[in-house]
């Protein structure tokens, strides 16, 4: 079996943000999406840059400079996209998270599961 990258929780968050944003994934939008996903925890823009660099070094994401735009003072955006390795790492993380969820439900019972599903329902509404 091919070796996969171990990724941390914050890296999963950033990869998910890039996946969700598709073509529009650059510093500002990734940060906004990561804050939305991490709510109620805050996310700093600096931490997003550091993680994007690390993901790039691991080959999980790639980037390119877009054309300059006036609202950015004529500066270009660095747009990110998931690489095949990044998609695979994210899929594996999602599977692990699902297993953890199932194990928690088995341990804490159906009531706990219902309460959390209700809580998430409120958040997504």
């Amino acid at each position, binding site marked *: 079996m091919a070796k996969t990258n171990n990724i941390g929780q914050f890296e999963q968050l950033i990869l998910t943000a890039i996946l969700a944003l598709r073509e529009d994934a*650059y*510093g*500002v939008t990734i940060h906004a999406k990561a804050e939305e996903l991490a709510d109620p925890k805050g996310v*700093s*823009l*600096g*931490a997003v*840059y*550091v993680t994007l*660099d*690390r993901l*790039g*070094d691991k080959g999980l994401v*790639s*980037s*390119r*400079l*877009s*054309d*300059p*735009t006036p*609202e*950015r*003072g004529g*500066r*270009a*955006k*660095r747009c990110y996209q998931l690489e095949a390795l990044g998609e695979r790492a994210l899929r594996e993380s999602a599977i692990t998270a699902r297993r953890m969820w199932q194990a928690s439900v088995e341990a804490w019972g159906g009531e706990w599961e219902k309460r959390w599903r209700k809580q998430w329902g409120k958040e997504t509404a």
Partner: protein
Amino acid sequence: MNKTPPKMMEWIVARMVPPARREEVLGDLQERCQGPAQYLLDALRTVPHVIASQMRRSTDPRLVICEALALYLAFLTAPAHPGARSLIFDPAMLAPALIPVAASLVALRFIDTYSLTGARTRTVIMAQVALAVAITCAAEQILWIEERAMALPRGALLQGGILACFLLWMLRMAMPADKSRLQMAGPGHTEQTPDEDIQQQAKKFRERIRDRNRTEYAGAALVIAYFGIRLFETGQLAARIGFALIIAGSIYAMYHLRTKESPGAPPAEGTYEKYAAYHRRELVRQRDLLHSIWRWYLGPFLPGGVVLIAGSVLSAAARQKQRHPSSVFVGAAIFGLILLLIWKGNQRAERRLQLEIDDLDAETSRR
């Protein structure tokens, strides 16, 4: 709607962000700008992370370890003043010698973080290491005023600094930075026709060779000046002969470089085939030059080095109480290490040139 940050504030922030990340980070900060206070706060929270990340990306742990060893060796093998023993034999100096090592390493990390991510030529690398050593010397001068016991003697700092420059320069030539980590992909480059492409390749290669030759001349001038001063300073016959032979070796190497290895003139105009033939000729000439480096570049330094080492061994044997004989072996080891590093670096460059020749041949046969 976002606001524009004050020009002065933006200028200061721009200077703090490493050049490799400046474009997108400044653009992102401007896009998020809601006013001067928010912009400043955002920049203060973001820029340290960007600097730290770029520093991590531009740091090769193997190079840092080698640099630390080279710096410690350079400062410890220097004598406090001409004729004195090296600092390595003074236990009280072992800890103070770590201070310039740490200062140089920190300076180098910042220089790497803020250096432009384009091609690092020999001249650029020499300027970078010279800047780091100059910063170290300035820090040591402050230490000399504040806490003299912890500062290196000025003679040792000067001589150690010169040796450190050469060792660092050679290390960085032998272990070039991984550009793919320093520089992320930019916007797609414009397509060129094969004729323009080969012209540009030939032009760049010619500039690279001229730049290398200029650096070699400057290096040789430094060597000649340094050993020229030592020639008049020393009273020992063997040392005088050794210094004179090293100067003669430098002059011979530079004469060879000037007369045999300067790049030829490119064709004024012509087809792909003409430029390709010119470029190939130059590549082959430089590859052969690197292949024969012992004959014209390293070899001429050997007689001087051998005479100096032999003279030092005899002198150490005669004055065993004044001078520790192992300092001679440390000096010989450094001389050998320098030659080895130059040879290995040139072997690597020779292999790269051969790859370029193979690529060019493959491209020419496809046409």
